[in-house]
């Protein structure tokens, strides 16, 4: 990625026109970070100011404040520009406290683990 001049900035994949905008950054581990893009480079290393993590479990969500984040580029999946005109989330989703979302997260994880163990035990049945 070359340093785009002012005239071709809109035609390049450079993140320059996302600077100072509110973005959603999807990471490889599935985390969703939101914040203002203050800096980046050709590897998609990025600096987010006022970052928060949006944790979503089913219809519940919570924004956890993180502060200033430097993200190593290799972990970035997608950087999305948030359209401020649009609703960020579907209307049926409810905002809950951090404690509540952590509980929901834990319950979901345990449910998945349980499903995994049950599947393992039933493997001899050759379900697929």
């Amino acid at each position, binding site marked *: 990625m070359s340093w785009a001049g002012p005239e071709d900035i809109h035609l390049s994949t450079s993140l320059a026109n996302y600077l100072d905008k509110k973005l959603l950054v999807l990471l490889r581990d599935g985390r969703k970070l939101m914040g203002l893009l203050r800096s980046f480079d050709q590897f998609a290393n990025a600096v987010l100011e006022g970052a928060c993590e949006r944790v979503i479990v089913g219809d519940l969500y919570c924004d956890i404040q993180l502060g200033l984040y430097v993200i190593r580029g290799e972990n970035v*999946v*997608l950087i999305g520009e948030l359209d*401020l005109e*649009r*609703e960020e989330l579907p209307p049926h989703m409810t905002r809950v406290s951090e404690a509540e979302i952590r509980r929901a997260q834990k319950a979901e994880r345990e449910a998945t683990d349980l499903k995994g163990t049950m599947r393992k035990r039933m493997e001899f049945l050759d379900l697929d």
Partner: protein
Amino acid sequence: MLFFSYFKDLVGKEVTVELKNDLAIRGTLHSVDQYLNIKLENTRVVDQDKYPHMLSVRNCFIRGSVVRYVQLPPEGVDVDLLHDATRREARGG
């Protein structure tokens, strides 16, 4: 550089990008670079219900390294042209 040039010719067309995390995004190809990073405009996620956080994303940058497939418009593939270009590149120019 073959696929880079190839994708550059597809700019402005509607494509679906499937990522390694199974997220599939449809949108207009805005630009592509040497790493095959992709910028899409007017995006919508194919399985919207599963990814509610993507609802308000209109434009996005996708890191080339996480792309699994790019689904192209049917008229977007000129196999003969690609074939010739491949042979030319293999001969070294």
